[in-house]
């Protein structure tokens, strides 16, 4: 019997995923509504937009932040789903389905209406909103980590519907042009962010991913049940708290920049688990690369498919994710 060394396994898994991510990112930079030759785009990238051309502006000011945002968002939502699935021991758990994203959006809109304009300020309210949604769900399902699959999802659906109505309610009350885009909040979109916003998001997300990676083995132990996890030296309560707070923070930060993107946290973790097995020490880095690549591809489709203009990327993620959710639900019933 041989157990392949973990480090080499992580490396083996992440190299192809990183390659896919690079390919996705390159495609994201090159493809768009205005068609250019590869050489043009390359020269625009190399000159870093110093040369004053429309193409350089498009590539550097519009496509680059968008691709980076897609990577960050895909990675953080995938990790959010992965963490929730492990902690709640429920394969259907996902930030959007549980209404945590919805809570974040309500918080973010409330923060903006209260006059905060910087991402950090809005993110604070967004985080508070996500925690409120999470606490509400845990309270409805009577707390604890062992829960019935159905009641958890049902609670999520209700919290989600509630948040959706509050979002529309808040937006209809206001004249504030920053929050006026209902479609952005309800059907997430990657087109709204600036270079600086994406930079701030990246700086905030990186420590979160490090924390989650450090808690990868504890997530494995938690899957074996609280009793056994505790017997293997794990402080179950503290671990769950750290993981829930960190993943909620990641989700709320991304929601501030992208609105509600559904099912990303369902598709990538399940796909990767199917391919790589359930070890979170492999799955966490895999979700970062795989989730990033997945959302970049989804965004490409959202940009290329429409006959004119583009559609919100949330349409694509929901069209892929919802059927998968139904399949998982059907399988869990058997």
């Amino acid at each position, binding site marked *: 019997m041989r157990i392949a060394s*973990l480090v080499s396994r992580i490396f083996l898994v992440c190299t192809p995923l990183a390659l896919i991510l690079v390919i996705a990112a390159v495609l994201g930079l090159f493809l768009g509504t205005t068609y250019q030759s590869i050489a043009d785009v390359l020269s625009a990238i190399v000159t870093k937009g110093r040369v004053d051309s429309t193409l350089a502006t498009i590539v550097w000011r519009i496509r680059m932040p968008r691709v980076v945002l897609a990577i960050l968002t895909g990675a953080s939502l995938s990790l959010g789903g992965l963490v929730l699935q492990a902690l709640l021991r429920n394969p259907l758990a996902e930030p959007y389905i549980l209404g945590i994203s919805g809570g974040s959006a309500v918080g973010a809109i409330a923060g903006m209406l209260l006059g905060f304009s910087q991402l950090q300020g809005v993110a604070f309210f967004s985080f508070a909103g996500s925690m409120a949604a999470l606490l509400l769900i845990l309270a409805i399902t009577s707390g604890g980590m062992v829960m019935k699959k159905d009641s958890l999802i049902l609670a999520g659906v209700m919290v989600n519907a509630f948040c959706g109505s509050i979002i529309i309610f808040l937006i209809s009350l206001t004249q504030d042009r920053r929050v006026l885009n209902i479609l952005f909040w309800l059907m997430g979109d990657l087109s709204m962010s600036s270079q600086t916003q994406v930079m701030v998001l990246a700086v905030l997300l990186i420590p979160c991913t490090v924390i989650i990676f450090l808690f990868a083995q504890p997530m494995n132990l938690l899957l074996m049940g609280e*009793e056994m996890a505790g*017997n*293997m*030296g794990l402080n179950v309560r503290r671990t769950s708290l750290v993981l829930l707070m960190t993943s909620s923070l990641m989700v709320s930060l991304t929601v501030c920049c992208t609105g509600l993107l559904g099912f990303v946290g369902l598709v990538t973790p399940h796909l990767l688990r199917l391919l790589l097995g359930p070890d979170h020490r492999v799955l966490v880095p895999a979700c970062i690369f795989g989730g990033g690549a997945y959302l970049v591809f989804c965004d490409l489709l959202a940009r290329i498919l429409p006959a004119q203009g583009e559609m919100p990327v949330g349409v694509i993620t929901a069209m892929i994710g919802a059927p998968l959710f139904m399949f998982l639900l059907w399988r869990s019933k058997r």
Partner: protein
Amino acid sequence: MKQAVVVQDLNILYGKLPILRNVTFSVTEGEYFIIIGPNGSGKTTLVKVISGFLKPHSGSVEIMGRPLVAITRRSLAHAVALVPQSPPMDVPFTVAEVVLMGRSPHLGLLSLEGREDMEIAEQSMRFTNVSHLARSRLDQLSAGERQRVLIARAVCQRAGIIVLDEPTASLDVAHQLHIMDLMEKLRTEQGITVIMVSHDLNLAAMYAGRILLLNHGNIAGIGAARDVIQAGLLEATYGCSLLVDQNPFREVPRVTPAPGEFAQPDSLHRKVFLKQD
């Protein structure tokens, strides 16, 4: 001999309901110690206290000479390994992955296993005879295989005390004996203290160095098999009629329950319960 576990005046309440009352006993290092008693007598609760999962409301517990309250979770994991009664089994981990998890209390920040950890895992799998299943998934095993994997995981933890909660409950007779023998081997070869909860009075009588009989959270009897496995004591505790004679294989008592007329556990229980209050 040193004491592996010392329990003194232990009280546990669920809400206001007492589950364990003034329980005092100790387990010597290297002992095969079996806890028996009717359903709801507090056996599993006692196991949860020893494995650090439940905090006592009053009284004290010492593990390897150190008070339980002063031991960190991690160093408790180095001292006590647990095979719980009904852990989740729908996890898609492979056998090797589950067994290797037993090393996690010994790993550093990034939880990367080294060569030595792999070797200990392989030894543990050989010990419980599951090496051939290393790549099989936990949720695809039979009950007997699963139990052996969980025991391998606990052995892999390399703790001085192994605590098992009804490890033979859903197994056929051959698998039951196999598990009991494995624990005996672990005890004699590695000097590990075995603390086991069991419902099988005959297995307990055959294998235990000492038996602890619990009844409604009280100690009804403790000692060698011939002192605890007695018709009067067991009838009063379990509330059914039974015959105790000599086991034909070993110098220990054998229990045969009498079917029919006296099998009214609940009413008899209540009587015993009231008398003790």
